[in-house]
């Protein structure tokens, strides 16, 4: 039963990644593209946790934690670059 729920959740988050890719390609503004990248990071975190459940190991939590940190820093850096023209002043 857990296997089918895992397959369902993996399919949902994978389809969400495709939607985000569509928004990155077609997004009318730069803010839309940053937003789609941030959502993509969140979907990848969920996918990593689900993959860890399906494998039954706790190794993937570190990976998802690192992805969360890098995603936050990259989003903030991109926004700072557009807002101020510089990342570290």
């Amino acid at each position, binding site marked *: 039963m857990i296997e089918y729920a895992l397959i369902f959740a993996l399919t949902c988050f994978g389809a969400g990644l495709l939607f985000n890719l569509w928004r990155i390609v077609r997004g009318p503004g730069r803010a839309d593209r940053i937003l789609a990248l941030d959502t993509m990071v969140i979907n990848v975190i969920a996918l990593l946790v*689900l993959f860890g459940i399906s494998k039954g190991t706790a190794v993937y939590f570190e990976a998802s934690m690192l992805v969360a940190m890098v995603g936050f820093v990259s989003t903030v850096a991109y926004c700072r670059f557009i807002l101020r023209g510089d990342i570290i002043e």
Partner: protein
Amino acid sequence: MLAEIVISAFLVIGGIFGLVGSYGLLKLRDCMQRLHAPTKASTVGVGSVLIASMLYFLLVKGQVSFHEVMITLFLFLTAPITAHFMAQVHVRLREREDDLPETDRDFGWSIYEDPPVYGDGD
């Protein structure tokens, strides 16, 4: 058996909310509306997947894991900051300074002016 039902329910709820969050990114019309959709994916979607992971490792594997709490805390702390930055970027790129209302303060909008310096500036 009950544990499997609960874990599967959390997984299905998380998957549905993640899909809704990403679908809203496609469907909504304006960028400010689109900011609203992925919050569902980042709070309820990822949150219930992490709860399902905690329950799985606790009830099926028999080991307590606290990594999920760290990931949830980090996501819940950083989501408002990134949303605020993206709203600032949208306002900066779409609105002109003259179109924005007056701030009724000594200094203007922070996205156009440097922050005010109090004291001797060091």
